[in-house]
């Protein structure tokens, strides 16, 4: 019998849950799975062509762990579409999957790679101890405020990202976000730029058993938001609650109703458009 093993030098492999959807994705053609060190984790990023793999390799160069290439699970999958138009006459979208789920879709590969960096970096949020790390779909309104919606609505909003941008509403690519507990601001890492961007969190939609769209008292909001904190294990419950209470002092909590994709956009537009 052996005791607990120390994390390997390349980081602890990020686990992946096996699902039928993932098996279908695995059945597609993939060129390589590259290992990337993110905080204490080793994350796998696979690509569907030699060119895409080389781009991913260069993108994460300082954090690459080549000895673990092909050993780590493919936590992220990058599918760069063919330059040739599809049978429909339109060019396919470039995609990033987290496990089996599409988490980024773009026509522009540069923007897709920006999304990929943000998504991979968000993995480190699990071990964050200075800030709250919260799962959700964050929409920046006029560059001045953030509306946070349930994580499940990120996929819906992603399909409307270009429509949102025309309304000056910017959907952040990641589905977990750091919140400074002392200011209640979302702290957004800017790729290629020194320093973080901070934007106040103004409205937070949370799920409750009743599901009606209505304002919540702040204590109700803290209660409903608690399960969305992804770094609870790193913080401990007492610190998590204390940080949530402080961070939400200027936040309006609303119940998130079950909404269609159009409703989500309309609701955000109604609140801030």
């Amino acid at each position, binding site marked *: 019998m052996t005791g607990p093993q120390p994390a390997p030098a390349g980081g602890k492999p990020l686990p992946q849950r096996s699902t039928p959807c993932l098996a279908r994705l695995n059945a597609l053609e993939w060129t390589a799975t590259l290992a990337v060190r993110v905080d204490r984790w080793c994350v796998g990023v696979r690509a569907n062509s030699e060119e895409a793999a080389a781009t991913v390799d260069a993108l994460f160069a300082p954090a690459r762990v080549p000895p673990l290439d092909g050993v780590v699970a493919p936590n992220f999958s990058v599918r760069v579409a063919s330059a040739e138009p599809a049978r429909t006459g339109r060019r396919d979208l470039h995609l990033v999957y987290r496990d089996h789920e599409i988490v980024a879709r773009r026509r522009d590969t540069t923007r897709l790679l920006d999304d990929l960096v943000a998504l991979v970096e968000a993995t480190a949020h699990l071990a964050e101890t200075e800030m709250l790390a919260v799962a959700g779909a964050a929409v920046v309104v006029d560059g001045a405020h953030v509306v946070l919606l349930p994580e499940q609505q990120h996929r819906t909003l992603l399909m409307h990202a270009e429509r949102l941008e025309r309304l000056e509403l910017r959907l952040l690519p990641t589905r977990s976000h750091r919140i400074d507990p002392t200011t209640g601001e979302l702290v957004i890492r800017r790729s290629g730029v020194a320093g973080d961007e901070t934007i106040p969190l103004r409205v937070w939609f949370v799920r409750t058993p009743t599901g009606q769209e209505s304002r919540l008292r702040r204590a109700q909001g803290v209660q409903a938001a608690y399960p969305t904190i992804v770094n609870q294990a790193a913080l401990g*419950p*007492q610190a998590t609650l204390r940080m949530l209470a402080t961070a939400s002092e200027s936040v309006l909590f609303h119940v998130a109703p079950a909404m269609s994709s159009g409703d989500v956009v309309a609701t955000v537009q109604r609140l801030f458009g």
Partner: protein
Amino acid sequence: MDDLTPEAVLRRRGEPELAWVEVEGELVVYDSERDALHLLDPAGTAVWKLLDGSRSIRGTSKHLAGAFGNPVEDVLADVLGFARRLQDLGLAVRLS
């Protein structure tokens, strides 16, 4: 479960099983053993704070009645009901 009397003494459970924070007079309590979140309204929060094992439910009621200027018997019924609920939820334990 034995029924509570006004002479019973309860003590709220504390860390590490419970974590809590007060938000605008209401208490959000997380029970890590049951992975359950509870919300106590302002009246419940006031009772919760007094359940420190040093006084009976009647004593707690007298304290609150004095603070809010209400008849003790009226307050006692509410505190007794709330104490039973806390005990059922595992948020307080009976000492005597």
